[in-house]
């Protein structure tokens, strides 16, 4: 054979799609479906983070709230020649774990009880206790304080919002568990979608695969080609899904600001940092799911070849 150089085909200079996967695994359906999954995942992550933030905020407020009810506040206390209410207030002021003392006024009591008892509670002539709101600065329940208050004004009730806080925690945990379940389901559905698309590609390119297999392609070569394609499509779809989710999340963040105790810093809503960080991670996770699913699917399928 005579040595003769021929100008190489331009096609030879770039990466060759040996199995024709650009047409076998089309670039519309798979990215669209993965994009939809990514959108749902972004909402689920936002739900998880929002639940955690709100719970932290609410638990902090509720858990530290101390409410003291003094029955018959005008009656004399056990000792000291003062009223029961004065004795209780003195004891509370003396306690190092109590701060922000505030005795609810008649108007405040009226507005609190109005939903249950009607327009004007004072006209009903009911023995309404005096209510003192304060902050409880300790982690444990105020048992010792309640005893001290009971000693100066028997029948006085002192309670924190710990019970409410634990209920809020349970609610938060269940919301977070639900959101994580949604994330898991979304990931599984994405994997199933990629697996189906890969199987369709395998069926469509069966002959090409048999040919390259016969020419000495390793299973890793063939699985790698499919995995690269699936990775690219999944990452692209997921990035689009995350981008579409962004304005929705910004809108939800603006709605949630008052509940999270966050005052708007500007007219532009801002996403919490953990959520901002998780959005770019979505295409990465989708790419990993795409790569792994395609590898498993193709390697399993290749076992049928000799």
């Amino acid at each position, binding site marked *: 054979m005579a040595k*003769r150089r021929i100008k190489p*085909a331009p096609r030879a*200079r770039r990466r060759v799609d*040996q199995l*024709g996967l650009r047409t076998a695994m089309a670039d519309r359906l798979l990215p669209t479906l993965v994009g939809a999954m990514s959108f749902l995942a972004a909402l689920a992550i936002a739900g998880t983070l929002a639940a955690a933030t709100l719970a932290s905020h609410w638990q902090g407020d509720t858990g530290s709230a101390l409410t003291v009810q003094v029955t018959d506040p005008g009656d004399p206390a056990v000792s000291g020649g003062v009223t029961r209410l004065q004795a209780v207030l003195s004891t509370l002021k003396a306690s190092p774990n109590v701060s922000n003392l505030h005795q609810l006024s008649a108007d405040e009591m009226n507005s609190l009880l109005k939903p249950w008892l009607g327009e004007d509670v004072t006209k009903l002539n009911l023995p309404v206790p005096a209510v003192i709101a304060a902050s409880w600065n300790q982690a444990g329940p105020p048992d010792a304080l309640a005893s001290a208050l009971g000693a100066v004004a028997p029948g006085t009730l002192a309670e924190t919002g710990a019970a409410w806080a634990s209920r809020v925690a349970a609610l938060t945990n269940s919301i977070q568990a639900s959101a994580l379940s949604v994330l898991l389901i979304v990931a599984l559905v994405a994997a199933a979608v990629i697996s189906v698309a890969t199987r369709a590609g395998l069926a469509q390119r069966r002959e090409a695969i048999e040919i390259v297999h*016969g*020419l*000495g392609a390793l299973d890793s*070569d063939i699985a790698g080609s499919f995995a690269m394609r699936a990775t690219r499509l999944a990452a692209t779809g997921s990035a689009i899904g995350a981008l579409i989710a962004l304005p929705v999340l910004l809108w939800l963040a603006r709605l949630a600001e008052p509940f999270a105790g966050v005052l708007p810093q500007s007219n532009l809503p801002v996403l919490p940092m953990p959520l901002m960080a998780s959005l770019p991670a979505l295409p990465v996770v989708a790419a990993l799911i795409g790569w792994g699913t395609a590898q498993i699917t193709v390697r399993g399928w290749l076992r049928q070849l000799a």
Partner: protein
Amino acid sequence: MIRFVDVWLKYRHNGEASAASADVISGMSFDVPDGGFRWLTGASGAGKTSLLKLMYLAEHPYRGRIEILGIPAARISRREAAMLRRRIGVVYQDFRLLPHLSVYDNVALPMRLARRPEKQIRSDVSELLHWVGLSNKLDRRPNELSGGEQQRIAIARAVVVQPHLLLADEPTGNLDDEQADRLMLLITSLNRLGTTVVVATHNLSLVRNYPAPCLEISGGRLVHEG
């Protein structure tokens, strides 16, 4: 060395060799030494293609022992089998070209799978395509070419890696006399350089023109060797 010892083959259905299906290769035993040349002859349906499939590891016998290039085919891993296939060039009866690839990329495929440098691929593929007379059709797709041209691409693809074993199934079926002679010149050149060659054909005039030992099979059995 190719060695077949009492080899039996029947085609599998759903991955299993059914007891009811007929044997396509029955108790076949022969040796082809390193650097040897064998014609594989027999009528259509005699089992020539099936025998070649066993040689390029596309099928496994349900009984018997096969060695290809001195390697026992039954004991090798999938990776080793792939590596062994890279040392085997195959010209398929139906060409088996990839329709979505250009002529150039089809011929370059075995070299790319073997991870040869692109510079070497460019040189070897260009040279071979010139030799088979298709240097002006590098960018064409196989379906844009005639049967004879497709066969020449298939031949170029089979020999581009300078295989240790060349298996050809009716390689001159779509070629005119001149192209068939050029092909046989190429095959005998490779054989002289040490490549073991097995060519299946029912073209007896070709066998007469290029005398070499012959494996004649009929009904899946070896009926004559020599």
